[in-house]
C-alpha cells in the first residue's frame, strides 16, 4: 500500500484515473482525523488530499469562502474570525472521540456532513456547501453548484456529496457559505430536571420566538464531568439553552426565556464558548471507561423514551442529549456491548423512536462486522447502489466505508 499525495486537482484526477483503469481502491484522507469513522476501509492505496489546501478566495461581504479540501478547519476558523465571521454549522472536533490526532479539515467536515449544536437553528454542513469541484470514480474532474449564496442551476449535487464519506467523488475544491459571528452569547442553565421533563422543555424553548441556538440536556453524571463550573456545580442534571446575537437582544431574550421556563444560572460569553465546544467534542462528558459510543438521531420528542429503553437494557450505558433531543449520545462499556456493539439493543429501540443510529466509536473488528450506519430500506438501498455506480462504477473510492459491498 502506498500513499499518493497529489499537489493539485489535475494530479488527483490522474491518480484516480489510474486507479480506475487498474481497478485499485483508494482511501481518501486529508487530516486523517476521521479514519475510524464509518466501516473500516481496506484500501490498496491511500489518496491523501492534504496538499490540496489553502484558502482560494474569501470575500466577507459575499459570505462566501473557497478553499482546498485539505485546508485545516482551524485556519479557516481563524481567517473567518478575523473578519467577524464563522462556519454556522459549528463542525465538531471528534478527535478525542475517535482517538485520532492531526488537523480536521474542511473537506472532512463536508464529506461526513458534520454539525455541532447549532444544527437546531442553522442546519448542517450540507446546508452550507454552495459548490465544489471533485474527481469521480471515472477519473473525471467535474463541478457542481456555484460560488454565490443562492443557486438552483441543475441538480443539487452538493447535498449528495456532503455526507457521502468520500464514496462518490474526491473533493478538490470546496465553496461554503459563511455567516457573521454573533456579537455575544449566553447560556441559561436549569438544574435537576429529569430527562422526560427536560426534553419537552427544550422543544418549548425551540418553539419560542427567542431564537435558541443550542438546546442540550446532560443527566447528572455527564453534567458533573463538565469543566464549566456553572454546569457541574449542582452535581445534578443540567438543561442548557444557548442564545446568541447583538448584546441588547441576548439580554432581553435571556430574561424572556427565564420568564417562560423558570429561573436558572447563566453562563457568560466565554463559559458559553467553552461549554458548547465541550459538548461538540462530547467525549469529555461521557464515562471515561465507556469506549463504545453511538450517535442516535431520533424523532426529538421520543428522545427520553429511547434513552430510557437503552439505559434499562444496558447497565453501563449513559446518555447526553443535544439538538433538543434530536441527538442522543449513548456510551457503554466494550464488555457489555459485545461483538455487535450492542446493536441488538440499539437498533430495535431506534426503530420505535423514528430515526437512525450510527456506531461512532468502537473497535475496528466491531465496526467491520456490524453495520455502522442505520441499514437502509431495500428500495432506498437499491437506488443508493445505482447512484454510487453513477459516480464510481468500479467502487474504487472509499469502498465499504458506508455499505458492505460498495
Amino acid at each position, binding site marked *: 500500500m502506498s500513499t499518493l499525495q497529489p*499537489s493539485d486537482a489535475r494530479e488527483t484526477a490522474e491518480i484516480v484515473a489510474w486507479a480506475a*483503469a487498474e481497478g485499485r481502491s483508494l482511501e481518501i484522507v486529508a487530516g486523517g482525523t476521521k479514519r475510524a469513522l464509518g466501516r473500516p476501509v481496506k484500501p490498496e492505496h491511500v489518496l491523501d488530499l492534504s496538499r490540496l489546501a489553502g484558502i482560494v478566495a474569501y470575500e466577507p461581504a459575499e459570505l462566501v469562502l473557497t478553499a482546498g479540501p485539505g485546508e485545516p478547519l482551524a485556519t479557516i476558523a481563524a481567517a473567518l474570525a478575523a473578519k467577524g465571521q464563522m462556519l454556522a454549522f459549528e463542525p465538531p472536533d471528534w478527535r478525542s472521540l475517535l482517538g485520532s490526532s492531526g488537523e480536521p479539515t474542511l473537506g472532512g467536515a463536508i464529506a461526513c456532513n458534520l454539525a455541532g449544536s447549532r444544527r437546531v437553528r442553522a442546519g448542517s454542513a450540507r446546508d452550507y456547501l454552495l459548490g465544489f469541484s471533485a474527481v469521480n470514480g471515472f477519473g473525471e474532474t467535474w463541478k*457542481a453548484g456555484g460560488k454565490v449564496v*443562492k443557486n*438552483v442551476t*441543475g441538480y443539487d449535487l452538493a447535498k*449528495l456529496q456532503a455526507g457521502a464519506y468520500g464514496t462518490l467523488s474526491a473533493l478538490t475544491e470546496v465553496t461554503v457559505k459563511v455567516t457573521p459571528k454573533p456579537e455575544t452569547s449566553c447560556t441559561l442553565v436549569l438544574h435537576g430536571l429529569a430527562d422526560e421533563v427536560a426534553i419537552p422543555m427544550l422543544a418549548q424553548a425551540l418553539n419560542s420566538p427567542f431564537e435558541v441556538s443550542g438546546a442540550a440536556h446532560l443527566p447528572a453524571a455527564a453534567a458533573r464531568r463538565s469543566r464549566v463550573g456553572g454546569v457541574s456545580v449542582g452535581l445534578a442534571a443540567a438543561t442548557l439553552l444557548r442564545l446568541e446575537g447583538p448584546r441588547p437582544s441576548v439580554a432581553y431574550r435571556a430574561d424572556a426565556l427565564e420568564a417562560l421556563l423558570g429561573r436558572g444560572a447563566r453562563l457568560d460569553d466565554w463559559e458559553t464558548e467553552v461549554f458548547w465546544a465541550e459538548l461538540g467534542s462530547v467525549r469529555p462528558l461521557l464515562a471515561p471507561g465507556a469506549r463504545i459510543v453511538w450517535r442516535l438521531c431520533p424523532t426529538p420528542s421520543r428522545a427520553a423514551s429511547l434513552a430510557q429503553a437503552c439505559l434499562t437494557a444496558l447497565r453501563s450505558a449513559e446518555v447526553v442529549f443535544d439538538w433538543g433531543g434530536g441527538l442522543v449520545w449513548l456510551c457503554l462499556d466494550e464488555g457489555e456491548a459485545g461483538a455487535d456493539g450492542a446493536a441488538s439493543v440499539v437498533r430495535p429501540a431506534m426503530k420505535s423512536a423514528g430515526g437512525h443510529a450510527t456506531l461512532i466509536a468502537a473497535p475496528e473488528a466491531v465496526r467491520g462486522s456490524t453495520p455502522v450506519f442505520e441499514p437502509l430500506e431495500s428500495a*432506498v438501498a437499491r*437506488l443508493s447502489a445505482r*447512484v454510487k455506480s453513477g459516480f464510481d462504477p468500479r467502487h474504487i473510492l472509499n469502498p465499504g466505508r458506508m455499505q458492505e459491498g460498495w
Partner: protein
Amino acid sequence: MPEPDRAVLARRAEIVAALRRIVPGEGVIDKASELRAFECDGLTAYRQPPMVAVLPDTTGQVVEVLRYCAANGVKVVPRGAGTSLSGGALPLADGVLLGMGKFNRILEIDVANRCVVAQPGVTNLGITHAVQGLGLYYAPDPSSQIACTIGGNVAENSGGVHCLKYGLTTNNVIGIELVTIDGEILRLGGKHFDASGFDLLGVTVGSEGMLGVVTEVTVRILPKPLGARALLIGFSSVESAGDCVAGVIGAGIIPGGMEIMDRLAVEAAEAFVHARYPLDAAALMIVELDGCEAEVDHLVAEVEAIALQNGATSCRSSRSEEERLLFWAGRKAAFPAVGRISPDYYCMDGTIPRREIGRVLRRIQQMEGEHGLRCANVFHAGDGNLHPLVLYDANRPGELDRAEAFGADILRLCVEVGGVLTGEHGVGVEKRDLMGTMFTELDLNQQQRLKCAFDSESLLNPGKVFPQLCRCAELGRMHVHAGQLRFPDLPRF
C-alpha cells in the same frame, strides 16, 4: 422539446382507457378543450397541451400510473399549481400530465417536533395558515405563495425574499415520500435530523420533477419573529445601493429581507400601489430586520448609519406594522406593476456576486439599447439574486425573440461575472440551452448519471434542464484503457 413519439400518440385511446382503470371518473382528462387548461405554467411563452391529464387522489394511484407509464414507455410531466416561471411543468404532446392538486390536505401538525406533514398539493401559504395560531410559520415565501404548492416548491427548491436569513426550500424540508418512475415508494428523511446513507432527500429537492413524484412533504416550522421593522432607503446610484448591501453584511447583520428596485421598477410600483416611494432615487432599497424589539431597534439604527455612510439620499424606517407593509406593498406588486406599463414582460433570475451589482446593471442598461427593449430591475440584493424584467409586446412581430435574446445575454453576463443562471426559478425549458455556459460536458454528464440512477429510460419530465436527453447506457460506460494511462509521478510515502 423532444419530437413526439408517434407510436405513443397512435396508442392514445388505449393509454387513456388504461389510465381510467387506475383513476376513475373525472380524474382523467382527454378532451382537447379541457386539456388547454394545462397547456402552460407561469412561463406563458411556451404552450403545449398534454396528450392526457391525470389527477390522482391517492398515493396508490400515483404508483399505478407511474408503473403503467414505465411499462409502456409513456412520458410523465408532474405538475403542482403550475406557477413555475421556467417552464418546469410544460406538458409534452406525447406525455401524461400528472396533476397533484387533489393532494391538498395537511396530514399532521407536530409542534413538539417542530414540523408539519402535508400533501404536496397544499399551498405554501396554506402551511403557514395551519400553524400561525400557534405562533409558528413556514419560512420560504416565494412571491407566488398564495397559489404555489409545497410539492412544486420541493421540485423547484423555491426561495423568496426571506431566504438569505431563513434558507431556501431545501433548508426547510426535512422529509418526503417520493414515488419513482418504477412505482417504488421511497421515504427519505423524516422528523429526525439528517438520515442514514446518501442525502437523496437533498438531491431530490430542486430536481425539477425529473427524479420522482413527491406524494408527501414534512417541513420544518419556525416560531414567528417577535417583530419586524423595515427601512426604505433611496440612493442616487445603483452602485451606492450595492455598496450599502456589502456594508450591512460586512457589519455582521443578516436582515430578514434586503431588496433593491431600480428607477423604472420604482416608478411602475409607485404608480400602481402609491407606497410613497421616493421617485427621485436611482435605486430604492428595502431592508427588513426581524426579532425582538431590542434587537430590531438596535439594528435599524445600525443600518441607517451604514446607509448614510454610503450616500443614501433618503431613509425612512417603519413606525408601525401598517407602514412596514406599505413599504413592502410596492415591492410585492412589482411584477404586476411592470405588467401595467408593458403588455408583456419576461422575468429573469440570475444570481451574481453582490460586488458585481453595479457593473451588471450598467451592462443591462447598455443592452437595452442593443436589443431595443426596456428592462426594469428588482432583486433580492441580500443574496445577489437579480430579477430583470424585460419589457416587450408579444403582438409585435419579433419582440418575443428579442426579449428572449436579451434575457439570454443577461444570464450569460451573470455567469461571466462569477454567478449562476438561476437563483430560485429553476432551469426548466427556459434556460436549458444555456447550461453549457456554466457547466462542462463532464459536469452535465455527472448530473445525467444521477438522473439515470432514478429514471434510466428518461420518462420523467424529459426535455427539461438538460440541453440533451440522457444517454444512460453510454454515460455508464467506463472509458479507460488499462496500461495506457501514465502512472503519475507523485510523492509517495
